[in-house]
């Protein structure tokens, strides 16, 4: 072989391209790619789920690629035939979008050892829910001495200028609005009463945060004393010494299913199934339930303990009773109209 400048250049370029676009070369041999969420989810999955999966599957190669649901959907849509992700994780709204766009593979329920142990609400044939996210009332116990008990407490005159909410961009904001509407006689199909209630809430509103994460900052800065909040996010704040408490309102805490799906046309279908199986096991779910993660389990074989048993539910029966699940199919139908309306009407 004669080495001239041209052939060297070509080789270098090819090697460079293979490095830059690994998908070009060995599409079939890439490790399992799991798109988890960023932040505490990634930490929890890296520390607990991934080791459990690798132990059960002879150290199979796995890569965590944390990103938002919408980014997962966009990335898979861009390369449907050879998706860059094998397992995706979604909130209820985006999950329905992904399924609607034919991006998810049906979960092989009959092959699964743990699917039947999940509580009924978590059994989703297009991708089961290994975890719940729970939304209730968050308050600052230093400023508010009597713990709130109901969503209606947010309207109390003593909380004038102390209430924080988020806009409808987030699952939390949208779910909360639906719950408020329900409290006032509305439903997933009719949130008018919710918007009326928001109008009445305006004197109490100190802040409309752009995302749930920003609410945490507002608590830290004393900008707000009470808000709807995510159980997990609050536990993280609490662990850092911020004076916050979580309470499930008597109307029921809003529970969102976080579902996990095998991506359609995934080259790693079998490993993807194994990873999801690992996420459903009582062992993984128990570890994730304990501090510092405090993620609400969905496997009925997990014995509730710690903070979750104290604040949320002692067992699955109580959990079912205290949690409210929402119909996100209905919510998704009108969500864009609600966001538009929120944009226009909520100015403080």
């Amino acid at each position: 072989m004669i080495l001239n400048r041209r052939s060297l250049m070509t080789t270098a370029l090819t090697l460079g391209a293979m490095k830059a676009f690994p998908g070009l070369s060995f599409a079939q041999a890439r490790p399992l790619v799991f798109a988890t969420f960023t932040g505490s989810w990634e930490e929890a999955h890296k520390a607990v789920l991934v080791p459990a999966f690798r132990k059960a599957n002879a150290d199979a190669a796995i890569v965590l690629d944390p990103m938002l649901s919408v980014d997962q959907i966009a990335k898979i849509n861009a390369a449907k035939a050879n998706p860059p992700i094998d397992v995706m994780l979604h909130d209820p709204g985006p999950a329905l979008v992904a399924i609607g766009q034919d991006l998810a593979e049906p979960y092989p329920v009959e092959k699964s050892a743990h699917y039947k142990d999940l509580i009924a609400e978590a059994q989703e044939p297009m991708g089961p829910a290994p975890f719940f996210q729970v939304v209730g009332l968050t308050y600052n116990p230093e400023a508010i001495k009597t713990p709130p008990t109901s969503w209606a407490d947010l309207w109390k005159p003593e909380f004038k200028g102390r209430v924080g909410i988020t806009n409808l961009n987030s699952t939390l904001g949208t779910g909360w609005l639906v719950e408020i509407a329900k409290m006032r006689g509305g439903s997933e199909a009719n949130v008018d009463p919710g918007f009326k209630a928001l109008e009445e809430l305006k004197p109490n509103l100190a802040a409309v945060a752009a995302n749930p994460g920003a609410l945490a900052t507002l608590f830290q800065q004393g900008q707000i004393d009470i808000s709807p909040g995510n159980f997990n996010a609050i536990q993280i704040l609490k662990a850092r010494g911020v004076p916050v408490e979580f309470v499930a309102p008597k109307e029921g805490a809003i529970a969102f299913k976080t579902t996990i799906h095998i991506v359609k046309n995934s080259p790693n279908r079998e490993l993807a199934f194994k990873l999801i199986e690992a996420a459903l096991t009582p062992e993984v779910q128990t570890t994730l339930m304990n501090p510092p993660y405090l993620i609400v389990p969905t496997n009925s074989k997990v014995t509730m303990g710690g903070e979750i048993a104290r604040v949320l539910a002692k067992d699955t029966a109580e959990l079912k009773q205290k949690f409210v699940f929402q119909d996100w199919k209905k919510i998704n139908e009108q969500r864009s109209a609600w966001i538009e309306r929120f944009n226009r009407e909520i100015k403080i």
Partner: protein
Amino acid sequence: MGAAPASRDVTSYGMGLAAPLALFFLLFFVAPLLQLLWLSLHNDTAGLHWGLGQYLHFLTDPFSLGVLGSTLLLGAEVTAVCLLLGFPIAWLYQRVGPKLQTIIILIVLLPLLTSVVVRTFAWIVILGRQGIVNATLQSLGIIDTPLKLLYTQFGVVIALAQVQMPLMTLPLITALGRIDPNLDDASCSLGAGSWRTFFRIVLPLSLPGVIAGCTLTYAAAITAFITQSLIGGGQMLFMPMYLYQQASTLQNWPFAAAISIIFLLAVLAVVSVFTTLGRLSRGYGGA
């Protein structure tokens, strides 16, 4: 010139060296931009039906136009604040000794060395209900109840002005440095007061720097998604957040694409006004 075909014209230059960058831009800037334009010309989210529906929707909707207007206004306010605060610093820089100059340049550059997110969070701490501003005013007895500073237009303008300040100050420092200090002395010796000298000599000669600084600050301020959403909150809607909402939460890509194209054109219009002013000022400065 051009006597023999073999001899090269020394005043012309080959485009060959610019080719790699041009190719890069073509691939990663022009092509996506065209794709964006293509996407925005569809009436449905699936991108099947052609039409100008998205543009019509935006341009006939008072709410959307309001968002565009308030974003452009925000940019103007931030630019004005930056100019008013940045000019004296740049002026001072040219008149102090080398030691102080190092300190000034360090202070100006320091914000650029920390991430925008960090700077913005600092502003949350400063402007918050129990923040530095409110605590000071309360302890001085000037106010009884804390002022609402966070999540207001005022807060966004102040925070953005600080975050984008280097973009204004650096071009100003360069422009002021190019002015011959003898001109100041000449003006004074001919009987002009210091204000007259400033307005008739220093300001006109520094205009190119002012224009450059304003263009940079303006463009950075209106597109500052992080600062706008963290300090402005969820109910103050500016174009970047509007765009994000449509693309990301609602998956309405064609409308989001139309918003970006309209935003791009609006910004281009503002920037071209700045450039025209710049061209005029060059004539002025050379005169």
